[in-house]
């Protein structure tokens, strides 16, 4: 333990600057401050990563999320707490306000402790439903840990997620690893696009209430089963604040971080809970998957003026956007996931162009994506818009408004350049010369002498 703490202290010194992009103030809400020792490794790891961890219980008097309208903490970690409601300082409205103010929340649940109503309300606003009566445990009679839950089957041993969805970054993917989920609470996700399940229960799992449904589970009363039951899911709000629901708080405890688990008929292997916990917390607290737009440049192709406010129809323009990604402690060039493209829309009401941006350059900490194209033959107020919104990555919505004007009166080709105008020009010439000629003849011809 001591060695671990000293390592942590050393790491802390090294990583004091290397902190999350969202800020370093982390508040852990737990039943009893003394309880933090059961999560010692996990919390120590967080502290080592540069977080300034404070601990409060829901009953604490001085607990507020906001001070003078400003967020007091950048991140919240909810560990299971036996309090039914979380008190006046952690009402669902406050928590939604916290998310709206770009605060991140990691909610860890446990089937041994009923979830607080405040959290249940918060999650239901996010379209995440928990079992009725706030309790329910996920069991799987095929994927359980034969060592610790030989009878109850409520410690799930699952393959670590791989390929959650095509075209996403692989932050949570630990190929070949296994995860142990002791006493997990399953939850069901609504169909909102902001939600992404990270770990789903296997097809053979189901959720039941051990107190009331221990004998018989009516199909009508079944909360959820199989793949619909999510164990870990993430939500990224539109302002890129992150909320993670972790079905099993126990998996963060020291005893489960490196626990050895055995599947039915399998070998005794070491669970990858530690690495997974690091990644889940790192993602939630904005240490990974954070994108930064360093700058947008658009210009006429033959001009040096950057980002003009007005273009003309049919101009040739080039556009480039520079993106960086935060990876634990440094900014690195952003590389697109496989099977994904970064697109530029040139739009007024609807896109007139939708173009794939190609990588045109890379610096130490930024990747530049760009494209060149010809503006449409339509004047109006257009947007250069990069609307790159993917799960696990902070949203990029870069809108640069420019006006596209019509041809000025002196920008059209002159009439003598247009071959179709030649007949008319020659007509003018003929009329003028005819008139001048007539005048000349008229003036220089001698008047006929008066005959009569």
């Amino acid at each position, binding site marked *: 333990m001591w060695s671990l703490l000293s390592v942590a202290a050393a790491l802390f010194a090294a990583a004091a600057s290397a902190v999350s992009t969202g800020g370093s103030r982390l508040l852990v809400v737990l039943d009893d401050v003394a309880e933090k020792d059961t999560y010692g490794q996990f919390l120590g790891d967080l502290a080592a990563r540069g977080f300034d961890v404070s601990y409060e219980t829901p009953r604490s008097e001085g607990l507020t999320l906001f001070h003078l309208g400003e967020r007091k903490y950048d991140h919240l970690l909810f560990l299971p707490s036996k309090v039914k409601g979380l008190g006046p300082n952690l009402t*669902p409205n406050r928590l939604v306000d916290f998310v709206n103010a770009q605060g991140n929340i990691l909610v860890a649940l446990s089937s041994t402790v009923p979830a607080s109503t405040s959290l249940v*309300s918060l999650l239901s606003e*996010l*379209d995440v439903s928990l079992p009725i009566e706030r309790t329910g445990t996920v069991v799987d009679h095929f994927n359980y840990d034969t060592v610790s839950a030989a009878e109850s089957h409520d410690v799930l041993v699952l393959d670590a997620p791989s390929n959650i969805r095509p075209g996403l970054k692989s932050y949570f993917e630990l190929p070949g690893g296994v995860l142990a989920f002791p006493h997990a609470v399953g939850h069901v996700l609504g169909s909102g696009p902001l939600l992404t399940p990270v770990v789903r229960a296997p097809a053979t799992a189901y959720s039941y209430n051990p107190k009331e449904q221990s004998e018989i589970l009516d199909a009508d009363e079944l909360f*959820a089963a199989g793949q*619909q039951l999510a164990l870990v899911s993430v939500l990224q709000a539109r302002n890129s604040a992150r909320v993670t629901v972790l079905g099993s708080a126990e998996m963060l405890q020291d005893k489960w971080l490196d626990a050895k688990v055995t599947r039915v008929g399998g070998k005794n292997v070491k669970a990858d809970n530690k690495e997974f916990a690091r990644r889940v917390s790192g993602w939630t607290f904005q240490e990974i998957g954070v994108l930064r737009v360093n700058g947008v440049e658009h210009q006429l192709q033959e001009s040096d003026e950057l980002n003009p406010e007005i273009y003309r129809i049919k101009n040739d323009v080039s556009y480039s956007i520079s993106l960086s990604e935060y990876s634990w402690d440094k900014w690195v060039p952003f590389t697109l996931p496989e099977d994904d493209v970064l697109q530029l829309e040139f739009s007024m009401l609807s896109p007139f162009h939708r173009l794939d941006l190609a990588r045109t350059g890379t610096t130490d900490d930024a990747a530049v994506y760009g494209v060149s194209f010809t503006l449409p033959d339509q004047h109006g*107020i257009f947007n250069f818009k990069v609307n790159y919104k993917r799960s696990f990555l902070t949203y990029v919505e870069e809108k640069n408004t420019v006006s596209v004007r019509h041809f000025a009166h002196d920008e059209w080709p002159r009439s003598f350049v247009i071959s179709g105008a030649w007949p008319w020009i020659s007509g003018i010439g003929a009329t003028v010369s005819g008139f001048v000629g007539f005048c000349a003849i008229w003036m220089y011809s001698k008047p006929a002498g008066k005959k009569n």
Partner: protein
Amino acid sequence: MAAKTQGPAVGYTTESTRTLLRVVILCFIAAAAISSRLFSVIRFESIIHEFDPWFNFRATKYLVANGFHKFWDWFDDRTWHPLGRVTGGTLYPGLMVTSGAIYHALRTLTIPVDIRNICVLLAPACSGLTAFATYLLTNEMTTSPSAGLLAAVFMGIAPGYISRSVAGSYDNEAIAIFLLVFTFYLWIKALKLGSMLWGALCALFYGYMVASWGGYAFITCLLPVHALVLICMGRYSTRLYVSYTTWYALGTLASMQIPFVGFLPIKTSEHMPALGIFGFIQLIGFIQYVRSAISGRQFQTFLVTILVATFGLGLLGLVALTSLGYVAPWSGRFYSLWDTGYAKIHIPIIASVSEHQPTAWPSFFFDLNFLIWLFPAGVYLCFQDLKDEHVFVVVYALFGSYFAGVMVRLMLTLTPVVCVAAAMAASQILDTYLSWKSATPPEEQEAPKKVKGGLRGSDKPNVGIYSNLTKVMVSGSMLVYLLMFVSHCTWVTSNAYSSPSVVLASRMPDGSQHIIDDYREAYQWLRQNTKEDAKIMSWWDYGYQIGGMADRPTLVDNNTWNNTHIATVGKAMSSREEVSYPIMRQHEVDYVLVVFGALLGYSGDDINKFLWMVRIAEGIWPDEVKERDFFTPQGEYRVDEGATETMKNSLMYKMSYYNYASLFPAGQAADRVRGVRIPDQGPVLNTLEEAFTSENWIIRIYKVKDLDNIGRDHANAAAFERGQKKKKPTKKRGARVLRVD
């Protein structure tokens, strides 16, 4: 004033004294014309009025700030968001260029005047010129020296013209009426003299007129009609030929220099009469030449048939070209001139403008007072002495009266001819009855019979006035009428036409004036509290004002060039929130502005205009917006608890009455415009939040909410904010909704 104008008639002897007097009187008239238009400045302040002037003012500021070339190519990205408007090519630049020129001229004279003051005072200044132009025009009609001065006075203070030219009414008409009258004067002059120079001058001012006002089409049509009537009367002359061809050729070239007009003079039906008469007059000229060379009656009749045939063929060709699409048919505004019901059925956007409504009878008297019954007398006098210029007055009177009857705002084009004709009649009366000389016996009045002019029936023997009592009575009653006219004009000007409509005035119980300044309060709020590029959605009436006063981009404005875009706004206003919100998001709307008069009893508010929004939206989306749904089954348009569901759920209704009932004690919320009781339970707004409400609740501004941060719909998010618990999601009935990933 009336007394002054009688001065010359009393009879001074020397010519130079008369001229001096005339100049002095004209100066006085101009001063009277200008000063009677200053009511609004004195009552309120030096402010631009109403709606369109705000655009003209903004355009003038742009012109002064950026120069003429930039103005010419101006692409305005702060109106019609996100379409923008090619403003430089879609406006009549005459007004702005005039103000800009005055501004720069004063600058070079080292008189620094604010451009706003130039704009405010341009219309009164032009009215002085109009009075002078009317004087010139009338003098061409009659030999009576008093007629011109009377006409100048009439023109100077007639409410029909003042309505569009008070100080601050910085509109195209301000300058265009002067140009109209002056162009007519030059045309008469050119026609009388058969002079190319006057014809060219006429064309020049016609070009200026085209640059200034869309109403130039009135000249474009009236001059050919005049020429045609003269030809049909057998009055073709080389004078007519020279003046008409000079005017047409140069005038058309001049008009084509205006980008907004461009090729219209050879493409649209409005301009075809002028082109047709131009060809016709060439033909006549040719025939006249042939006839002078070869004589013979049969040949002449043969030629006449040829003429008729050519005319008919030309007309057929025009119809064919129109139907093939080479010549644009009459525009909707023009159709509504012939069929007053046309716009109401086919183009609601035109019918929705109050100044496009047919004129009510009282407004003729209101705007012209006793001139309206002197007018026919003046026209009759023209028949008595039917020279070419009198034919012009007759033709002008005929068309002017018709158009003024069809559209309220065309009263403006009628007013000059009314003033001219009425002045002729009045001066005839005054000249006859104010003469000290006794009438000569009727036997000696046998004048040589005029062969050319005059109707046969009008050649009555002249009768003189013998009794002084008659003279005193008639001229005395005339004087009374003139005085009444002056007082009526002053009263109308001060009471009806001097309100800026941006600032409203009301009377306090003790009689003092109370200014209601909600419009400017709200626009100032927008200017100070919103982002520079915050897009404001409102009904198009307020577009120019928002652009001018608040300096914020708008979706639609009074330049109603894009009916679909206006219908889109109409749809957003008349639909449910769930329908409106995506429209507003798509158009990047940040704020919505509505005008609501229920608290104050201000009847020009959006609820009263609402049916037009519905109609215009229905024109584009007949399946989604239905006017019928806004009426109760009994066919009533109601806003109280008996309003239809569609009405109650429409965004406009919600925005108007949001929180309104909370102003009143329970059960007493009343709408003072509609005169009904409003239910205590007001509408609920989910996608918008109230941002600003002006002092008297006339302007209400709402902010469009962003999408919910955590992905709920607005109704749920708003319910959560209000503290309502979400319904238990687990108590599901029926099949489970599964998430598919």
